[in-house]
């Protein structure tokens, strides 16, 4: 348990997500399989029910410490936590603290679980002996386990990230095996590592169908009546899966984010029948309108999901497609039919489960006008979906278009970083970004601003630990981090390798939800350029 206690301490003394993930990865690499399985179980928020009530622990503490009750009481209120107070008060005779290190799995399976069946006298005897012999950190951890209050500042998402890193396995693959119910054991761990652990089929999402940016004149799409038109939400694309008596939410980045949206889960469990999969958008929602994406990030970001965040950032799942109904895959059916079934399914549902409203217009010009309202409505533009289309896979062009508004934005991969100037000269704050072209990343923009100080600090740490090469002050970094960049104008340029020059590029946000492969392509940017050739842009 010593290594696990050290890991707990490392996680407890940093606020950096990356350091937490690194610490977990280091532990998982060296821990015996059964220990690693239990650690992953605990870290991912799967709780062990409490073994001993606080009243008994209190009584035994008074007896074992030899202190008067009033003094134990005063000490506890100064400390504010009985598990910690016990560890502090029992850390007396340093000399006896030579307990041999018992593995975490043995602690739980051979010592704690049998405690439930033991007589009170045996429980007392065992616990007081442990208190007297365990070093502080382990004693603290033991008490947290005993009281069933062991909370660690990481989420299932971060544990999955660390495990994927350790096993060299895609996160999606890993998450499908790790999620849901499992019994922590060496066998489970080996199976997880070798990829033989059964996929939790019930949880598996369908591949997301992705819209392409509209790069042609909208008039060329034919009759507007053939298109289902919706607002383009600024949230997290997700699949809400209701199967096998459970509920799962997968994000577009193929992460399981179920635990981050408890109110959506509650509503889904209450309203949806088994065998249903919805495609839609998780958005922050308050007083009848969608809130900026930055708010939603608090739900998925590094912070523990507290009651305060749940209250200050209410969310909705805005559904726009029905992929599975009554256990049947509907993806081959025309969108029109899926939409009708979706509306019927969610009629009268709790507000948290909303249907994305349709936007109607008599002609494309009228629609273009409506699109101008996007900013006022806090949406990113319009989605145009062919009513007759099946639900495709990946980014098949032609059936789904996203018709975004200016400022133009695109997703790019960070390639290089260098230190800033003045008071930021100790931090990597100047970045170069690239987009895909024939399987290669081509630099297209430099950007300096747009991140919060906290993100800058985190990114700086990431850059330092993911440098591939150094050229003077410039570091080439692992091309894995995606950022959404905005720009004010686009022009052709011979001076740039990419053939385009962007005006005023800036960072809109760090897309930790997006893998690098899904960043934009140079072709997308060129299409925007072609579309706007008529406009005068400075060279």
């Amino acid at each position: 348990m010593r290594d696990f206690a050290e890991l707990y301490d490392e996680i407890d003394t940093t606020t950096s997500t990356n350091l937490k993930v690194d610490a977990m990865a280091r532990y998982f690499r060296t821990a015996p399989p059964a220990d690693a399985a239990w650690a992953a179980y605990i870290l991912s928020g799967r709780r062990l029910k409490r073994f001993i009530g606080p009243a008994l622990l209190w009584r035994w503490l008074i007896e074992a410490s030899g202190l008067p009750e009033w003094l134990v009481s005063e000490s506890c209120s100064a400390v504010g936590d009985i598990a910690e107070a016990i560890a502090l008060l029992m850390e007396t005779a340093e000399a006896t603290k030579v307990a041999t290190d018992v593995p975490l799995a043995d602690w739980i399976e051979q010592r704690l679980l049998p405690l439930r069946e033991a007589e009170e006298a045996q429980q007392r005897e065992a616990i007081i002996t442990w208190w007297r012999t365990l070093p502080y950190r382990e004693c603290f951890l033991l008490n947290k386990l005993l009281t069933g209050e062991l909370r660690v500042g990481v989420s299932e998402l971060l544990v999955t990230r660390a495990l994927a890193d350790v096993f060299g396995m895609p996160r999606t693959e890993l998450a499908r095996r790790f999620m849901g119910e499992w019994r922590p054991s060496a066998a489970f761990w080996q199976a997880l590592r070798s990829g033989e652990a059964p996929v939790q089929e019930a949880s598996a999402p369908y591949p997301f169908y992705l819209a392409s940016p509209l790069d042609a004149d909208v008039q060329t799409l034919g009759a507007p009546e053939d298109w289902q038109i919706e607002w383009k939400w600024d949230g997290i694309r997700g699949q809400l899966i209701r199967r096998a008596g459970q509920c799962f939410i997968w994000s577009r980045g193929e992460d399981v984010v179920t635990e981050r949206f408890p109110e959506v889960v509650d509503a889904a469990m209450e309203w949806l029948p088994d065998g249903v999969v919805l495609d839609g958008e998780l958005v922050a929602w308050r007083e009848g309108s969608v809130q900026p994406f930055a708010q939603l990030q608090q739900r998925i970001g590094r912070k523990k999901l507290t009651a305060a965040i749940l209250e200050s950032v209410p969310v909705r799942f805005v559904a726009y497609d029905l992929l599975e109904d009554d256990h049947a895959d509907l993806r081959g059916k025309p969108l029109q039919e899926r939409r009708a079934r979706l509306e019927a399914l969610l009629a009268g549902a709790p507000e948290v489960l909303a249907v994305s409203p349709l936007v109607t217009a008599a002609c494309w010009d009228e629609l273009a006008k409506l699109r101008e309202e996007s900013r006022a409505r806090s949406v990113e533009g319009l989605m145009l979906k062919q009513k007759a289309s099946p639900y495709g896979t990946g980014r098949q062009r032609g059936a789904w278009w996203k018709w975004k508004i200016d400022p133009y934005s695109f997703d790019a991969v960070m390639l290089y970083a260098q230190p800033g100037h003045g008071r930021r000269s100790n931090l990597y704050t100047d970045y170069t970004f690239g987009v895909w072209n024939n399987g290669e990343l081509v630099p297209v923009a430099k950007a300096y601003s747009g991140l919060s100080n906290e993100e800058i600090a985190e990114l700086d740490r990431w850059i330092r630990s993911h440098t591939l090469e150094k050229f003077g002050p410039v570091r080439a970094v692992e091309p894995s981090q995606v950022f959404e960049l905005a720009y004010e104008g686009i022009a052709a340029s011979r001076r740039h390798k990419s053939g385009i020059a962007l005006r005023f590029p800036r960072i809109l946000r760090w897309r930790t939800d997006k893998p690098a492969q899904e960043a934009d392509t140079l072709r997308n940017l060129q299409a925007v350029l072609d579309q706007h050739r008529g406009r005068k842009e400075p060279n």
Partner: protein
Amino acid sequence: MQTAVITHAHGDHLRHGSARYIVARPGASLAQHRLGSGQPVTAVDYGTPFTVGAARVSLHPAGHVLGSAQVRIEHAGEVWVVSGDYKRQPDPTCTPFEPLQCDVFISEATFALPVYRWAPTPQVVEEIVRWWRANRDRGIASALFCYALGKSQRVLAELRAFTDEPVYVHGAVGALTDVYRRAGVEMVPTLTVTSEKKTDYRGALIIAPPSAAGTPWMRRFGEHASGFCSGWMRVRGDRRRRGYDRGFVISDHADWPALLETCLATGARRVLLTHGHSDALARYLTERGVSASALQTAYGADE
């Protein structure tokens, strides 16, 4: 006040407004530094008696900071000892606490709860060094907050067991460190942080007073990890409330076992307690048959 007998140079124990100040000789330069050069400071050796009015007075080491003293007062056949702030752990920057016998003992009680118990200092300083190295590996600076007088120099002296690398210090720490060096205390080399030249602080250890935390002065270090050296860091809630990344439990005060041992060893028939959790210690001693009570003073809880 006509004559002030000073136990040590911390702000809550040293006030202006007296006609003369008597201090233990090793602490004279510190007291002079704190009071200003015009003030009449008289240095006396530890253990050498002098008279104040009808009382026979002597100063004895308290082990708190350089030149800190307990004050022994003998008058009409009765002996009183005022401990001032003290600790019982070894400290390379000052003379160790000297146990005295007395009738009435006035003791500090800053950390008088059984949860406060100090690990040996070298063990904690080793933790600091490991933390510093880990931050260096990440390419960032380590800002260690310590009280400018006493704690900073004690850490700088204890660091000698691990390194001879220079440590950066805040101006307030630097000035006092110079006084300590002139008094013959050996510490690792220090460089005072200045505003003039561009210094690359990545990987460096910087010692600064807690008042510098979160101020614009910290910006020059870029991204850094922060640690705080204090007895209060023993409790996790205090660590988290104060917002430092790490807490290192090093105190210049006596912990619970040292307070008990010291109060009982004086043989005093009455113990008066000041600072912090004085009520708890008073009650505990009373239940053990020692007449003890809390005493209101103007002392603070910081140093």
